[in-house]
């Protein structure tokens, strides 16, 4: 099986990639600015909601219920969708999904040039669908403004909701100027948006095959829901003759009425709007309105491996609102690219390493201070810090199972500390030893240049040396003093 999450095969580990990102001041300013704005808007909208916590709880309960009966709901969804005229395909992994999509597009294109219009789908980025389609000779046009910016500049998304938030208006103008041949293009966001509108209008009216993802797949009705703002989603699901929707198996929800929970949580969490401009719902095909052929690809790509363990399963509750990214102090420093996966921020740090087991993603569960800001904002209450700790445990167990891993500096240090803490006498001698050992590193009353792992501390910060007397030393002298004063009297 080839599970893939974006172009991760070339990614460096998080600390290495983050270091590079930290040097890019423009990127950091753009990320900071954008996340500040969304956070402020989100906070405003959530203040309006007296029942926010109850909605979060219900969302979490509905998701956990659905995942616990995932086979039932997928089959129900499939049945209803096909009854309404859709065709459901199943894909074990990225390659299988891409193969199905490419074959369908080829088939429907006949002898015409194969072209598709796409509405933002993270899932298609996950399986690198555009790359696969290109190999198959199919031209794919992203139609979400931000995705278009990313695609035109051969970049990677840096946020799951606002993929181009790392680019400012001047950078976008340069990309559009070059790619659309517009020499006189202004740099106001309105100018840039207008340019995108005229550029894409022709594509929407001409191209006969559309590709979408889904925010929700409703089992009860067999219908699909796409949540969006620009109208490109409506275009892609309405104007073409053929529509292909790529849907992760975790996107299914039981009933239409369940949307009353998710559609209150998602827009407020994602963009700080009470409701996003458009939600489209459709089941199968409808004569006289929209595509005459509708295909769904239900994608596993590693998801089923998360079902067994309840902690891990929680990861699949995610509705991709991006609130955890905006809240995360680590993401806000580095932006999304440092995560080496199209899923960045806290959700990326738990999702990518579970979907695939590449070397770089093993650093992701450590890309967090466990500050809990992600859990606090998550509309479906995914306890991300707990999942991070759980994944760290898995990684350590795997490391310890290898000779090299079990002899790593960290592993040895941790084991030594563990042993020291098991006896207070050993611990006390260790305290004394450390006090002696630190002498050679002391400069002007501070430790400024420690060796080994601790060197990463003193590279950026000073450290006060261990005081002469530990607390327990103080306590002992105090007890002794009390005893001897008692004896004296």
């Amino acid at each position, binding site marked *: 099986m080839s599970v893939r999450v974006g172009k991760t095969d070339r990614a460096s580990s*998080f*600390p290495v990639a983050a270091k590079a990102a*930290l040097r890019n001041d423009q990127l950091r300013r753009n990320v900071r600015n954008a996340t500040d704005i969304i956070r402020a808007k989100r906070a405003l909208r959530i203040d309006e909601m007296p029942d926010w916590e109850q909605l979060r709880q219900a969302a979490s309960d509905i998701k956990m219920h659905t995942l616990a009966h995932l086979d039932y709901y997928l089959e129900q969804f499939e049945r209803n969708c096909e009854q309404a005229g859709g065709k459901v395909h199943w894909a074990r992994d990225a390659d299988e999904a891409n193969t199905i999509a490419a074959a369908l597009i080829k088939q429907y294109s006949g002898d015409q040039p194969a072209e598709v219009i796409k509405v933002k789908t993270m899932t298609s980025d996950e399986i690198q669908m555009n790359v696969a389609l290109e190999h198959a000779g199919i031209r794919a046009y992203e139609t979400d403004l931000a995705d278009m910016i990313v695609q035109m500049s051969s970049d990677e998304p840096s946020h799951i909701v606002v993929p181009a938030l790392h680019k400012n208006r001047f950078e976008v103008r340069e990309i559009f100027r070059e790619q659309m041949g517009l020499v006189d293009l202004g740099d106001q966001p309105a100018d840039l948006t207008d340019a995108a509108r005229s550029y894409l209008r022709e594509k929407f009216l001409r191209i006969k095959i559309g590709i979408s993802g889904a925010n929700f797949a409703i089992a009860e009705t067999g219908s699909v829901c796409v949540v969006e703002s620009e109208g490109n989603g409506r275009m892609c699901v309405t104007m073409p003759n053929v529509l292909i929707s790529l849907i992760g198996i975790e996107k299914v929800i039981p009933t239409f009425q369940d949307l009353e929970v998710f559609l209150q949580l998602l827009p407020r969490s994602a963009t700080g709007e009470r409701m996003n401009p458009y939600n489209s719902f459709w089941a199968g095909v409808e004569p006289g309105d929209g595509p005459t052929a509708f295909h769904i690809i239900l994608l596993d790509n590693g998801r089923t491996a998360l079902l067994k363990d309840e902690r891990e399963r929680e990861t699949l509750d995610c509705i991709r609102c991006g609130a955890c990214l905006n809240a995360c*102090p*680590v993401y806000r*420093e*580095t932006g999304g690219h440092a995560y080496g996966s199209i899923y960045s921020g806290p959700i990326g740090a738990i999702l990518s390493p579970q979907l695939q087991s590449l070397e770089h993603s093993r*650093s992701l*569960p*450590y*890309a*967090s*201070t*466990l*500050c*809990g*800001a992600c*859990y*606090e904002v998550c509309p479906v209450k995914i306890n991300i810090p*707990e999942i991070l*700790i759980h*994944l*760290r*445990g898995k990684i*350590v*167990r795997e490391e310890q199972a290898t000779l090299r891993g079990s002899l790593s500096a*960290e592993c040895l240090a*941790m*084991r030594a*500390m*563990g042993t*020291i*803490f*098991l*006896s*207070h006498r050993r*611990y006390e001698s260790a*305290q004394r030893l*450390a006090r002696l050992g630190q002498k050679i590193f002391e400069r002007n009353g*501070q430790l*400024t240049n420690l060796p080994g*792992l*601790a060197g*990463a*501390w003193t*590279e*950026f*910060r*000073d*450290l*006060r040396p*261990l*005081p002469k007397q*530990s*607390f*327990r*030393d*103080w*306590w*002992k002298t105090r007890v002794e003093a009390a005893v001897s004063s008692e004896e004296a009297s």
Partner: protein
Amino acid sequence: MRIALFVACYNDTLFPETGIAVTRVLERLGHTIEFPIEQTCCGQMHHNTGYQKDAVPLVRRFVSIFRDAEIVCVPSASCVAMIREHYELIAQQEHDPDFAREVRNLLPRIFEFSELLVERLGVDDVGATFPHSVTYHPSCHSLRMLNVGDGPYRLLRQVRKLELVDLPNQDQCCGFGGTFAIKNADVSAAMLSEKNREVLETGAAVITALDNSCLMQIYGGLHRQGSSVRAMHLAEILSSSEVDR
């Protein structure tokens, strides 16, 4: 009341003044402090870094040392978070019902220092005097896991001659995060420099918190920058009196 002190290993070794301050404040309020000398570490560092197997004996050790205590006072919010959030789960995973029962019985008796004062003992005024400007950093564990709320502010507001200055964006993490500070030192430092820019903006002479770990990070950065702002655990401010000055 007899209060057992779990001082936390890093406080014991690096910040003895915090334990001393806790002892003084509580004794001043008429309580008797006990310090079980066998105590070492609650297991947090091992557990949160992924060495969960190595944390288990430390958890068992902690429970056996403190199981009979009337009240346990812990001047470290992150250790309390470790105990409250993880001990029960660890006990469950050990499939040891006696151990699980002991944990369940012990948990309600564990208090973070400010919680103990405000929530358990109902005190906001501990009779302290501290003639300096102070800003308070709500550490992530105290803020989001313990939900200590305004307890620390209530305590600080009662301190005579203390000028309390608000820290902007106070709910932002300082970048410490245990082994994160080492494994992701660059990002940790970037987060820290933002935190410290804000600390310096307040003009306060002292930064305080319920966790010396965060304070060690904040102070380490400030000192490296040549700033003279001091970092003090809340207990140290509350133990100050006119006489000391």
